[in-house]
């Protein structure tokens, strides 16, 4: 299959800090490819380089054969970028914002107006097209950003955290629209720190951490890296965590460990182990117990020892699981 994007040793350094560290990947035409990683992993810097606004310190990348270093102008004509920032002008209408982008990509007169109308229709915003952007909801603003990015019908589109801060309903709406882009033949490179987003949308996922790609594959391939299930246990008395862990490990050696004031038990089959686990826990006050089937969050945890959102000021795995179950249901 023809590659749409090829990154070769792509690197970005700021002084001694390496934001992106010699990454390599190939994205096929018409594919939805996700860069999944926590905040500060290097996802946005990668998009910045691929979209020609940041110059790589080393390496190069090719968008449909055009070098992001040598053929910047050509690259800019064939890509669309929906940045993480909300960039649309509040004082203008959605239509005016999209029309400006159409004109900057060379469309004139009626043709520019038709393109703007198409993009707004595609993103389900035509009904609100002539409202000032300041009157838009968060979800509408995100969709407007994408409309501004697809108005020139780009072959490749970069979506940098397209659903960050949105409620479940708005997020799912954007997911549907991204799938529509794929149906139209557009190649989509998506960055996200929501594992459920990467899992729901992507043909393939690259897990990135500290500027390096640590795993790459289809969601199924990545999940296959984890054998068995994960059981998370939250006991009321934190002082008894070690005691509980020792008891579990006596029964199933090296299966239990402490993580974020919780107990993590790795087991081949949770259904076979649960009766014994309940017996072990009978002497303790258990606040919550969760059985987790393999997912990308667990893959990230397995590979890095950290949760995807730990940098956001603490990570409540139980709360996280409640939220994400709602999002993926």
């Amino acid at each position, binding site marked *: 299959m023809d590659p749409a994007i090829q990154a070769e040793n792509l690197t970005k350094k700021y002084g001694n800090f390496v934001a992106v560290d010699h990454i390599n990947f190939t994205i096929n035409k018409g594919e939805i490819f996700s860069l999944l990683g926590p905040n500060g992993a290097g996802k946005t810097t990668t998009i*910045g380089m691929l979209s020609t606004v940041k110059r790589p310190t080393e390496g190069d990348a090719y968008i449909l054969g055009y070098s992001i270093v040598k053929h910047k102008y050509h690259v800019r004509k064939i890509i669309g970028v929906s*940045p993480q*920032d909300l960039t649309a002008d509040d004082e203008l209408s959605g239509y*005016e914002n999209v029309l*400006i*982008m159409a*004109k*900057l*990509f060379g469309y004139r007169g009626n043709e520019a107006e038709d393109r703007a109308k198409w993009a707004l229709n595609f993103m389900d915003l035509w009904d609100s097209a002539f409202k000032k952007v300041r009157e838009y909801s968060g979800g509408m603003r995100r969709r407007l950003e994408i409309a501004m990015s697809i108005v020139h019908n780009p072959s490749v589109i970069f979506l940098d955290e397209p659903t960050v801060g949105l409620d479940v309903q708005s997020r799912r709406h954007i997911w549907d629209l991204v799938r529509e882009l794929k149906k139209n033949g557009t190649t989509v490179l998506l960055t996200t720190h929501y594992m459920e987003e990467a899992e729901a949308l992507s043909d393939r996922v690259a897990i990135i951490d500290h500027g390096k790609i640590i795993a790459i594959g289809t969601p199924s391939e990545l999940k296959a890296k984890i054998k068995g299930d994960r059981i998370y246990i939250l006991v009321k008395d934190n002082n008894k965590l070690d005691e509980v862990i020792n008891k579990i490990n006596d029964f199933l050696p090296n299966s239990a460990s402490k993580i974020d004031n919780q107990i993590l038990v790795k087991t081949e089959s949770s259904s076979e182990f649960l009766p014994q686990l309940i017996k072990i826990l009978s002497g303790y006050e258990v606040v919550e117990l969760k059985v987790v089937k393999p997912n990308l969050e667990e893959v990230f945890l397995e590979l890095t020892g950290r949760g995807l959102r730990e940098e956001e000021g603490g990570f409540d795995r139980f709360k996280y699981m409640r939220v994400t179950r709602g999002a993926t249901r």
Partner: protein
Amino acid sequence: MIQEVYTLTVRELKKWLSRRGTFIVSLITPLFWLGLFGKSLNFAQMFAPTNIPPQYSSLISQYVNHQLLNLFGTTSYFTYLASGMLVVFGFFQSVFGGTNLVFEKRLGYLNRLLMTPTPRSGIFLSKVFGTLIRILFYETILMLIAWGLGIKFKPGLNVINVLLAGIAIVLIAIGFVSVFAAIAFNVDNVEIMFAIVNLINLPLMFASSALFPLKQMPSWLQEIAKFNPITYAADIVRYNLIGTPISNYLLSWAILIALSLALFIIGMLVSINAMERT
């Protein structure tokens, strides 16, 4: 490139028109200068003879007026200040064109533009044109206000005079919009931008003939003022609007054009370099 520059300039103007509050706020500073400073500093009134026999009173008045005419080219300091303020206001507005750019960088809009095939010079030029159109609009309003407050235009003032004064203001604006856009393209922090603006604004205003004539300044300041384009723009505007004589009118034009062009070219090159250097 023309379509891109036109599109982005229209965007600038639409945003400006939609923020009605800033229209009033932008006029407040020059109104304070004109209404409070200019009208209060009435030298003819300050030195008006009181409790002096009439035969001396008339003589003193004649002497004061002669001195004022010699110093300011007019007996009304308000007239002198108002014509200078037209130039200073153009300069101030140019500066704030640059500060807007820092906000656009912070909000990510500039990055979005840089991801399009729009020429970098087009992005720069749209900033210059957008600011220039705003300045010309404000200058017209300010001139009407000065007229209402009692500026004494020269006898026989015609459209050509007004047009030439306008061109001088446009030249000064082009020069300084370019400089402050170049600074803004290289600065990410709004506080730093405002610090630079304050550092440059007042010294440039005072080291010029905008508020007081050069011959009143210490010799070292006069030397500095000779390199300040505001001096030449203020002289040309006064010559055309209130009839203050200039020692060499054509040379003043030549220096103003040369300085503004130099600032424009330097500003554009530095801005383009900043947009490409990330």
